[in-house]
């Protein structure tokens, strides 16, 4: 029995290596349990009895790889997830942003965009509209396409509306979208400051001079080693005094660069990059 688990572990390592060598997507340092569930689901749908057969398949059939890629990067997200976090963002980060003439924000792993629209709504209500540029990035192309369109099912929007009330939104949530059949189309005014782009945190470089980086519920999919590397990428992409926001169960405390950050809100996982010491 134990041999099965070990064999499966080997097969997964080999498959991820094959994907990297052939297609350049690097999942080798992702946490294995979640990725292995996704691989096995894809394997069953493909009628492959073992992961090794799936490996053969994706090496010889780019369409099979595309399907696996879609299954591997399922993007689960929602608007105003963890209302308390958005309250803290408003109270502890927005005042600082209001002092800056040109605000640059990176929403890393934005999935289908719900999070970045939540952010855009909050910033608009708080008056952070001067010069605002939000970069929203992900590796999942189909999620990015949805994000760019900003079209979401109306039944989800119900849930989002109650989240919006829980952050004490200043307006009316219906003012931020137009209903079209069973969908809500986000108002184009919200999109004006957002640039959606494909960016892979594992293999692509840093984004310069950010005042705020949001990367929520992405790090949990990485192993500690990769988390460490990506934290360094964020550290390099932030200006001194810039903020980093993580998901409610993520922490920077184990990263090598942890000492370059001050905790701002331990509970909501908000950190601030330190200013360089004058004497150094």
């Amino acid at each position, binding site marked *: *029995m134990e041999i099965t*688990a070990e064999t499966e572990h080997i097969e997964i390592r080999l498959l991820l290596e094959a994907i990297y060598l052939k297609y350049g997507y690097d999942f080798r340092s992702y946490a294995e*349990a979640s990725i*292995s*569930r996704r691989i096995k689901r894809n394997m069953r749908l493909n009628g492959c009895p073992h992961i090794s057969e799936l490996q053969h398949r994706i090496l010889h059939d780019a369409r099979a790889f595309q399907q696996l890629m879609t299954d591997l990067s399922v993007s689960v997200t929602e608007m105003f997830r963890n209302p308390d976090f958005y309250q803290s963002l408003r109270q502890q980060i927005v005042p600082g942003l209001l002092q800056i003439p040109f605000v640059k924000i990176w929403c890393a792993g934005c999935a289908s965009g719900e999070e970045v629209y939540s952010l855009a709504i909050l910033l608009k209500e708080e008056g952070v509209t001067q010069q605002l540029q939000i970069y929203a990035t992900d590796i999942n192309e189909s999620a990015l396409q949805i994000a760019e369109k900003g079209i979401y099912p109306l039944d989800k929007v119900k849930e989002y509306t109650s989240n919006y009330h829980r952050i004490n939104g200043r307006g009316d949530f219906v003012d931020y979208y137009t209903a079209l059949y069973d969908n809500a189309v986000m108002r184009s005014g919200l999109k004006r400051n957002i640039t959606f782009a494909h960016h892979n945190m594992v293999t692509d470089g840093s984004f310069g001079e950010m005042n705020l980086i949001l990367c929520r519920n992405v790090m*949990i999919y990485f192993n500690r080693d990769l988390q460490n590397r990506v934290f360094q990428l964020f550290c390099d992409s932030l200006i001194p005094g810039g903020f980093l926001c993580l998901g409610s*169960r993520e922490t920077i405390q184990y990263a090598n660069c942890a000492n370059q950050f001050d905790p701002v809100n331990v509970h909501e996982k908000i950190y601030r990059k330190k200013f360089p010491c004058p004497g150094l």
Partner: protein
Amino acid sequence: MKKSIAKNFLALDYEAIVMGVSAGGFQALTILLPCLPKNFSLPVLIVQHTIPNADDFFPGYLSQKAHVPVRHAVDKEPVMPGIVYLAPPDYHLMVEYDRTLSLSVDDPVNFARPSIDVLFETAAAVYGPHLVGVILTGASADGSLGLKAVKDAGGLAIVQHPRTAEVDFMPKSAIRTVEVDAILPLKAIGKMLARLAD
């Protein structure tokens, strides 16, 4: 009869316990966890279905009642003996091949996040026959397939006796799905776990 079952299994060394509980879980864990002795030598991983924005009250409360520490699992921490880990609300809890814990916000399974099946299946893949799976009270079918995965990997399957469960749906569903090794009331499960860990 039950005793002899337990005795036979004592020969195997168990490395971890996974536990799933839903409706009625607050009561059940308050009774079961204090049965584990201070020097309890196995890690206990628990998925309890809760509301997504539950706070840290429950692990704190259980920690006071039990003789072993009880807390929410932290992403990528190593699984340590004698600690009871609860899945944090709104996250799946999984065991990694290197025996660390990891969290995910993947879609709910059986309408649940955290899902019992997700924990049990990933733990079964890692611990194989050295795992004990326990299903307690609840109104969900979540956990039945997970317990089957534990059993199929050679592990031990224990279910709370449906007659003693606040809600018997989950134990009954597990018993229907899996050939379980023991069906016991809460305190007896506690004692059995204590013996298995000895």
